[in-house]
């Protein structure tokens, strides 16, 4: 299943321009970066976020009037999965100090800190512990640990990446905690890439002015998740409920967050958890496939936390901007949507059109790079077509071997190498075909520096929250986000649980009043949320489905 002849013949154009391009790269020359005005032009004309018809205004809730992607707006205005008159809240199944919903990197980091601070911790997660976006992160984690760097430069880069829309206090917390967060991971046993003398290897990512991307090969997230999960399993104070997603938050008589209703996916039982503090760390929304784009996310990235928190009245921010990663695989078809890490460009690989020519500076910010690729394949008509009818551009990975020596691709991009080798493509000799893919939820729930939300006792951390990255996240700042704010939320929740008295009456009244708002707004299409699992059954199967269990 290597490249078919028609693509092989196009690869010759890439090979033809390669020697000169490598020469220029060796001299430190690169394709000129766009001016600010040009960037704006590319974004407004080609970035999917700027398509007005793909958004609609919310008619209910604390962000009423905001225009969001239609797929997300529909879900935020969905009905509860619970029969509110039937659920019995007086029978509590689990009593805990801190309840954490979602066990990816943020949730697990929070659990470790909360238990360390003396709280009893219960974690509820939808899939297996660690089956999350965290495990998929490849490229690396930022942190100003190198001599020539400082949190100050990191701050400016993160703000610039987010077009200065980020919440300044959150960015300050992010960059100041970063070196400590990296050390914390290291002490837990995360094996970062190092020089033989023991110093950390750090690299550039898109939008960084200093080298500060730390990585573990191209499995940085997997390594972090392996270690955090291992540590959590070794802590008897953490109770892990796998395959048990949350369906609704619970508030108490004081209007504070007091637990959640969980669903055991295997037995279909509901569990009532009463907690003194709750942390939402349910991750992102890639599986909503905004505008029909393929996505890089794991199976459970369905925006559940946003849906539950929105019903409780938490405000969201920046959800109108979704991050499209410029380089998602489009060939072979089995790899479509899979992420090709930015590290490939960081190591010097160029993006090339059908004629084998460069058309952008490879390390433009993600949104700009995505827009340029879409332009090349549409307006410019210089995209490369795949047999399955997709269109994309080349990512010239073999350059890396020429720039950094034979074997670099296998060493630095081992996981990616394997993923293509399975299909008979050797990415150290042949380029890859890429097109933007839905990647990251830039915005989310509004939080303070310790993850606190506007409801006492409810905290949020990780991809579900918003503000840290503003409108656009830089590579490596999200793994950092989950460690920094996961830890902060864990500590804050434990402290809150110590102070706050135990909740008395549990209530779903916030869901009732949200349902009333929906009715008043005339929304009664029967759509329910949270989504929990994406539905990939084709239309003809869905249309004939019935519920198996009649009470």
């Amino acid at each position, binding site marked *: 299943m290597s490249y078919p002849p028609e693509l092989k013949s196009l690869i010759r154009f890439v090979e033809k321009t390669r020697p000169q391009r490598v020469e220029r790269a060796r001299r430190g020359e690169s394709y000129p970066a766009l001016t600010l005005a040009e960037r704006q032009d590319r974004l407004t004309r080609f970035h999917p976020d700027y398509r007005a018809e793909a958004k609609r205004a919310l008619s209910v809730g604390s962000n009423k009037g905001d225009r969001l992607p239609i797929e997300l707006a529909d879900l935020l205005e969905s009905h509860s999965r619970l029969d509110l008159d039937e659920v019995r809240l007086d029978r509590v199944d689990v009593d805990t100090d801190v309840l954490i919903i979602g066990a990816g990197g943020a949730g697990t980091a929070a659990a470790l800190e909360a238990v360390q601070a003396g709280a009893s911790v219960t974690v509820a997660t939808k899939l297996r512990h660690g089956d999350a976006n965290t*495990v998929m992160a490849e490229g690396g984690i930022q942190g100003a640990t190198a001599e020539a760097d400082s949190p100050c430069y990191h701050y400016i880069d993160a703000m610039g990446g987010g077009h200065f829309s980020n919440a300044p206090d959150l960015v300050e917390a992010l960059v100041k905690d970063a070196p400590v967060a990296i050390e914390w991971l290291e002490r837990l046993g995360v094996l970062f890439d190092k020089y033989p003398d*023991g110093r950390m*290897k750090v690299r550039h990512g898109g939008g960084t002015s200093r080298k500060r991307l730390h990585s573990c090969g191209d499995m940085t997230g997997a390594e972090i998740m392996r*270690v955090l999960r291992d540590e959590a399993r070794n802590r008897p104070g953490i109770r892990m409920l796998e395959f048990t997603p949350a369906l609704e938050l619970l508030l108490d008589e004081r209007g504070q967050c007091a637990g959640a209703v969980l669903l055991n996916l295997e037995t279909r039982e509901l569990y009532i958890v009463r907690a003194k503090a709750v942390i939402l760390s349910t991750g992102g929304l890639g599986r909503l496939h905004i505008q029909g784009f393929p996505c890089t996310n794991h*199976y459970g990235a369905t925006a559940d936390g946003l849906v539950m928190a929105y019903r409780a009245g938490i405000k969201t921010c920046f959800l109108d901007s979704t991050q499209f990663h410029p380089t998602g695989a489009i060939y072979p078809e089995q790899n479509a949507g899979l992420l090709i890490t930015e590290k490939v460009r960081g190591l010097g690989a160029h993006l090339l059109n059908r004629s084998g020519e460069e058309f952008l500076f490879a390390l433009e910010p993600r949104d700009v790079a995505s827009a340029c690729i879409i332009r090349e394949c549409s307006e410019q008509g210089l995209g490369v077509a795949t047999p399955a009818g997709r269109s994309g551009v080349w990512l010239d990975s073999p350059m890396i071997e020429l720039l950094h020596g034979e074997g670099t691709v296998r060493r630095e991009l081992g996981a990616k190498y394997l*993923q293509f080798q399975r299909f008979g493509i050797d990415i150290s000799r042949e380029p890859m075909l890429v097109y933007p893919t839905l990647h990251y939820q830039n915005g989310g729930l509004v939080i303070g520096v310790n993850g606190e939300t506007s409801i006492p006792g409810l905290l949020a951390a990780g991809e579900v929250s918003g503000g840290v990255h503003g409108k656009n996240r830089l590579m490596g700042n999200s793994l950092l986000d989950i460690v920094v704010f996961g830890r902060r939320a864990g500590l804050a929740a434990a402290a809150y649980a110590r102070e706050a008295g135990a909740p008395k009456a549990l209530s779903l009244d916030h869901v009732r009043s949200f349902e009333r708002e929906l009715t008043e707004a005339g929304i009664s299409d029967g759509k329910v949320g949270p989504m929990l699992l994406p539905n990939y059954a084709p239309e003809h*199967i869905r249309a004939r489905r019935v519920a198996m269990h009649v009470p």
Partner: protein
Amino acid sequence: MAFQDQVSIQFMGKTYRVSKDSTLMGALLETGWESARELGCLGGCCGTCAALYRLPDETHVRTGLACRIPVREGISFSLVGCYPCPEPVYDLTTIDDPKQALFDLFPEITGCHKCGLCVTACPQDIDVMRGMWCAVFGDYVSVADHFKHCVQCGLCARACRAGLRPIWVAAYARRVLERGQEPLVGGQEPSG
């Protein structure tokens, strides 16, 4: 979908027709199959989708990750699920002698009879057997290197007749290795 764009596959004994450009997991989703158990990342990173499969022209059963194996006409497969392979509980901060602790935590490790079945089973091309022997001899640097791309799918443990738990040996060795070193700050790439 046109007939020629489809292939026949067998999942747990039942035959389905699915699109030919799919993976085993993609094909399952296409049939309307639903589960929260045997799938996670859908991108070859999490190891949840361990599968056993047989190709029509072969007489042996192969192992792999269902989200990464392309479908083809006549392929027959099932999913393994979580293989019983309990993880020992330890507290890294109280381990004084990591080499001794390895044998305390994983007494079965010396039982490896070098059959190599774990190596054949691994979807990530890891030399699991060699990795286990590196652990026995206390060479944790090599263990760490061998298992860098381990997705913790458990297929090696399933293959092992001596009951070794390479997944957790690898996780343990990698973690104690880092703990043995003083934390270091980062450095710039040396110029030139």
